[in-house]
């Protein structure tokens, strides 16, 4: 009997990984982790079009592995630390299956260039798309963010994730060959010399010293801001609805927390949500990142807890971290101030 159990155990230990392998093949991993942003056929959307032959011809496997692992801090692409090395390999094999191009291999040796001269060349030829400081194009690229005729947003060359992932030689190769199907031209054909290109690479590499400083952490911010109201729930809600108007927000609705879940007559009238919206701010936020709807409409909750009336909201400055989109930073700061002002006015 004991041997029988041992045999079953060994069989399952051996058999399960192969089942897992079949289930978690590259396509499955892609569908779970990448398809939302990069599209079913890798045509892009919020993320870049991975299936572009010229992208796959210039991106090495090392670049793809590092990009998956490190992501692009502040530029939406998350770091997929949860995937095993084997899963990352299967994922890359799947992405490679879209094109017959042979994956390039690059030396890790730095390119010898003059960053001072490279800066001038960069400003003349690259800054228009990539920004003077290498900040890249704006927006995340989904339908509402930009015209679909534009296949790709210029990458942020000053991004720590990019600088870790791209070797000097890969950047140089991209500058020399360009990428068909994107606005990235071959700068050799555009008249730059190989030395000019080396100098640009040296300048782009010099962004590295500033890259870490660009990232900010929001972890010190509390996830929820809670204040105590000196008024009753009803008075607090009335004051809030008045404050909403004075902040140029439109009152969307006032509802009990359990509305739609409980029979109307049995709803808890001491847990109330005040929803409001400024459609101009909303429209701007959706241009930057269509995923922000997760915290829409603007919401302040009034909750009776014992003899206390609490006023609370999810802190936009903390919620920002889930989007990994630094373009939302200033808007989240602005929204936190709006919430604070609304509540301060209501609790006066």
């Amino acid at each position, binding site marked *: 009997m004991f041997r029988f159990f041992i045999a079953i155990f060994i069989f399952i230990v051996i058999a399960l990984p192969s089942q897992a392998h079949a289930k978690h093949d590259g396509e499955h991993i892609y569908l779970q982790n990448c398809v939302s942003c990069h599209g079913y056929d890798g045509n892009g959307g919020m993320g870049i079009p991975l299936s572009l032959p010229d992208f796959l011809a210039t991106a090495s496997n090392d670049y793809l592995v590092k990009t998956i692992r490190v992501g692009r801090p502040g530029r939406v692409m998350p770091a997929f630390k949860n995937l095993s090395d084997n899963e990352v390999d299967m994922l890359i094999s799947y992405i490679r299956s879209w094109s017959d191009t042979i994956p390039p291999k690059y030396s890790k040796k730095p390119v010898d260039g003059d960053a001072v001269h490279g800066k001038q060349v960069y400003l003349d030829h690259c800054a228009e798309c990539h920004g003077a400081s290498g900040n890249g194009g704006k927006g995340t690229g989904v339908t509402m963010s930009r015209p679909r005729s534009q296949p790709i947003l210029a990458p942020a060359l000053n991004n720590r994730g990019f600088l870790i992932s791209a070797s000097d030689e890969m950047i140089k190769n991209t500058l020399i060959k360009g990428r068909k199907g994107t606005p990235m031209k071959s700068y050799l054909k555009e008249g730059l010399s190989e030395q000019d290109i080396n100098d640009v690479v040296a300048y782009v590499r010099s962004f590295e010293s500033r890259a870490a400083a660009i990232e900010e952490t929001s972890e010190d911010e509390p996830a929820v801001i809670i204040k105590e109201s000196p008024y009753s729930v009803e008075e607090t809600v009335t004051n809030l609805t008045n404050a909403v108007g004075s902040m140029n927000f439109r009152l969307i609705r006032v509802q009990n927390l359990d509305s739609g879940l409980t029979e109307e007559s049995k709803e808890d009238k001491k847990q109330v949500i005040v929803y409001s919206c400024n459609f101009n701010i909303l429209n701007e936020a*959706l241009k930057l990142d269509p995923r922000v709807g997760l915290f829409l409409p603007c919401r302040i909750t009034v909750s009776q807890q014992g003899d206390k009336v609490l006023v609370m909201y999810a802190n936009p400055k903390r919620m920002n971290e889930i989007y990994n989109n630094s373009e939302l930073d200033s808007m989240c700061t602005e929204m936190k101030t709006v919430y604070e002002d609304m509540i301060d006015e209501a609790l006066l």
Partner: protein
Amino acid sequence: MRIYHKALVSLLLIFLALPVSAVADDLIMRRIGMTFPETMSALQSSIVEEGYKVSRVQRVDIGLTSSGYNTAEYRIVFFMREDVLHDIVKKHPELIPFLPLKITIFAERSETLLVTLNPMKLAEFFPDLEMQKTFAQWNEEVNRIVDRVQAE
């Protein structure tokens, strides 16, 4: 010998229970190869199938277009279990701003995207709350909801 058997069976059960691949993203996102109306219908059915009740659908696109802005279809689906909500209100009011749970649904041409907060992120926001099992359960349920829609 019986002890060995029990130990072996326990080991086997633990092994089988281990997730093959844990996903720990802050957002749960799915691209659905269906139009917006089809996806919306499938999403609501999937939510109900998981034992939740849809409490409201916020029509963000209607608000935007009535204010003069162009937008594709963009809605937010709120859902929750009533008893769980009432229990949390009593025990963990700091979680109220995150409830009911919700999934954002928006069109991208002929496809549709679903986005929601990974409930495990709440465990990071509130590490001291005795809610970690609930967050993990929500995570499993929400993943099942969107996976079912994607599989249609």
